[in-house]
């Protein structure tokens, strides 16, 4: 039990003041590529006020409808992204994970994968979940590779789910079961 479950090799998962995270989100959201890699909803610009309200509304509840963390670098304590877990945790033990690294200079360097490994440990060791799911888009190979590295398995695809840049793109379904994660974690 003598370990910090929020601590990874490159990052730690942290509580963030709603206003701090909201201001970081508005900064990241200026980059439409970040938003298109992150989300299926139309890329849009939200005020820090609006994002703060959303975060506060959800985090007021106990237990919260989702578990939300900031991703901070171990070196320099820089807020580079966020991750969250939501879904039918009770009674079926399934959760849906969302993750975004907003600072471009931290893309492709293992920060997202490291944060995902930490959030998976939280999901399986603290929330005692049975599986974790996620969706991504076929035009996001960097994310797909990262999720594969974290242990996610391909489960299917919704053909032509998204329409962007005059073309339809598949939504990729991935998931990891508790047993699969245990084998990986214990070697």
């Amino acid at each position, binding site marked *: 039990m003598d370990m910090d479950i929020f601590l990874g090799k490159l990052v730690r998962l942290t509580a963030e003041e709603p206003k701090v995270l909201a201001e970081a989100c508005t900064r990241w959201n200026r980059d439409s590529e970040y938003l298109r890699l992150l989300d299926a909803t139309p890329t849009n610009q939200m005020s820090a006020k609006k994002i703060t309200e959303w975060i506060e509304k959800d985090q007021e509840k106990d237990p919260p409808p989702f578990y939300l963390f900031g991703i901070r670098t171990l070196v320099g304590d820089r807020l580079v992204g966020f991750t969250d877990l939501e879904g039918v945790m009770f009674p079926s033990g399934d959760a849906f994970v969302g993750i975004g690294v907003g600072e471009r200079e931290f893309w492709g360097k293992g920060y997202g994968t490291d944060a995902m490994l930490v959030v998976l440990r939280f999901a399986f060791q603290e929330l005692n979940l049975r599986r974790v799911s996620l969706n991504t888009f076929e035009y996001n190979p960097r994310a797909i590779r990262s999720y594969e590295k974290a242990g996610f398995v391909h489960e299917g695809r*919704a053909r032509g789910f998204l*329409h962007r840049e005059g073309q339809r793109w598949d939504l990729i*379904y991935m998931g990891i079961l508790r047993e699969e994660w245990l084998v990986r974690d214990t070697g």
Partner: protein
Amino acid sequence: MLKGKLVRLAAVDAKELADVIVKWNRDSEYQRLAMIEPANQYSVKKLAEWGEKDQEKDPPEFYYFAIRDLENDRLLGSCGLGGDIFPNGEAFVGIGIGNRQDWNKGYGTDAMKVLLRYAFEELNVRRVALSALENNARGIRSYEKAGFLYEGKSRGTIQRAGRRWDDVFMGILRDEWLAKEHEISSH
């Protein structure tokens, strides 16, 4: 357009529908086939509130219909379309036939065909998606008959009756639906 061979899709009267859903929900099998949430008993008041809330917005978040028997106008079930209809042209279907004695008689498949026509011809969506639990073999067969193709599954999404069950993902593209319609009309 809203009329099939056995059923028609009609406006939802929230109170009327709530009165019958309470009866359908007494059968836990109906709830377990229709939903991944735990089977539960809700009052007419609560169900009517939910039904009304959905329909208050314009355009509604959810295109929701009552399924009525053509022969005697009996309320058999409900169905609807939600999801990323704008701007991605992707709709997600929900459908349920409430009474056991109305199962396996083609009402659901007929209602689905009408709903697909509404989705592709009126809402101009590019694909329609659904998910079904693996224990719902009757539902999956019906969706295949209506033209849906298997696209993947979330392995062991729910835990029920001492084991885990997959959630099966299916979808139909506009082109596939058009080809099927053409095939029918040319015979």
